[in-house]
């Protein structure tokens, strides 16, 4: 069973995938999952390993989508990223965390916003 918001999330991630590919990101993985959490997209851009969180919302009535990447969520993503780097023995590679914020009204075209280097450890 898929809820409406889960379905929206999947559509959003699909949109982000195409959008980032156009921007020159080389997408390595989609929906990387481990016991610590999940990362929507892992990509490479100009030699930098980028961990991307995609957030989609129907309206900004409850705030912008990017705002809902809370401290807790950010920490979860960072932990997952650490696990990923360890798991595949990746060392000395510059990393970055990006957020793609998608606003998708029920009738209307979606608007995407890419926030590069959105957060780091200790933010």
């Amino acid at each position, binding site marked *: 069973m898929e809820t409406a918001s889960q379905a929206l999330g999947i559509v959003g991630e699909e949109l982000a995938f195409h959008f980032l590919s156009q921007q020159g990101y080389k997408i390595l993985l989609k929906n990387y999952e481990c016991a610590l959490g999940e990362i929507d997209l892992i990509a490479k851009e100009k030699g930098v390993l980028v961990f991307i969180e995609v957030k989609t919302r129907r309206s900004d009535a409850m705030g912008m989508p990017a705002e809902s990447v809370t401290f807790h969520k950010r920490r979860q993503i960072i932990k997952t990223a650490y696990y990923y780097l360890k798991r595949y023995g990746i060392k000395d*590679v510059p990393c970055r965390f990006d957020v793609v914020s998608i606003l998708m009204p029920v009738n209307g075209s979606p608007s995407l916003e890419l926030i590069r280097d959105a957060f780091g450890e*200790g933010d």
Partner: protein
Amino acid sequence: MLSTVFSSAVVGIDAYPVEVEVDISSGIPAFNIVGLPDTACRESADRVRSAIKNSGLSFPSKKITVNLAPADIKKEGSGFDLAIAIGLLVANESIPAEQVKGKVFCGELSLDGRVRGIPGVLPRAALLAEEGSDEVLIVPAVNAKEALCVKGIHVYACKTLSGVIGFLKGDREVTKTSGSVVVSPEKKESQFEHLDFSDIKGQHHAKRALEVAAAGGHNVIMIGPPGAGKTMLAKRFPSILSDFSQEEAIETTKIHSVAGLLTQKAALLEYRPFRDPHHTISNVAMIGGGKYPKPGEVSLAHHGVLFLDELAEFNRNVLEVLRQPLEEGRVTISRAASTLTFPARFMLVAATNPCPCGYFSDPKKECNCTPIQVKKYMSKISGPLLDRIDIQLEVPCLKVNEITGKSGGETSDMIRARVEKARLFQRARYCHEKIASNAELEAHQVEKYCRVSPEAEKLLKMAIQTLGFSARAYHKSLKVARTIADLEESELINAEHVSEAIHYRSLDRSVA
């Protein structure tokens, strides 16, 4: 890449050097500050990030570790911002490493890249002078004058982070701040323009007693009914004090600098401090304290005057903590984090009513306090504290023709001239001792320096017999008599000097 930049920090009123090490490595972006930073210091990360971005440079999205060495001393405050930002830019290879050698940075950054002022610049400057190093001190522009109080060091003042970067890269000419700040007696007069002894009608006796106190550095207590002019007299007391010497000024300014009380205009305190805390003050505020101990009122009044109005209303604890500073001229504050000693050589000027209603022993108005109330009120001022006060002075109500008459009498300047003379006279006498004034005389020194004439001796004996003077009161009277003689530049203490001194022991007399 790793970089090292020098800064300094302040503990108590002394600075110590701090090395700011910045390491940038790839990995998950992070900005960590280690070396026991407090919250203000840790938040430096956010200020530095914004300041660098808003100065038109890119902030590295990498794993950044900042170490403030020595790592075992707790760091507090925002004074490391500038050093951290410069260290980061060196590690990032935006600034060549050799450019920051021999330079010491201190300052807080604002988010838009301006450099804000910090407390404690004077101790930092003094540190460089003590070490005799030819390092260049880079300080916020607002603190530049303060740093210049110390002679023999190179000071550069900066307003913005980009200005500092330009200066280090050499593509912008930053003028070296030069000149020195010295105590200027001309400015003193303007400070007390509105507070002059000639404003006070009558009270010649009290004025004279304050002159003696200022000349000999004696502590004073004034006792009298409300409205007699005790507070008015005390407020004008600083205007007759002898001038600050440069060393005294620097010492006191250091304390004020650490406490963050210096204004941009007055880099060096030009006149002796006059502190008049309210009687609800806590004992920590009085002697200093806090997790990272900060100077209290007694230290802020160093080389100046601590005025305690309504002495009997003060919390008893607060008065008792005054004993150590009054005795030793310094306070030692012990906390879990550290034990610090602040200088606190001040003159105590206290004022109090004789009883709760205030009119005890007033000739006109009747006192409606019970004898027990009066006793209880005065017993709040403990013997050991009273013991440290050389001059006990009754300030009576003014008479009708005094109140309606013209104000006048001598101006503060005239009195101060005499005080200065008496001080010089004392200094010449005590040139081989560690003391500077009569108030600091120890028992054995009293015998050595207070030679009395035979008539004076007789008078003192009489005082002991008829007024019931204790040995302590005897010594105090001798010291005060010494000062009175000094005002007349007489080496020998005569009968009139002694009789005036005995006059200033009103509490001893009334007890008898």
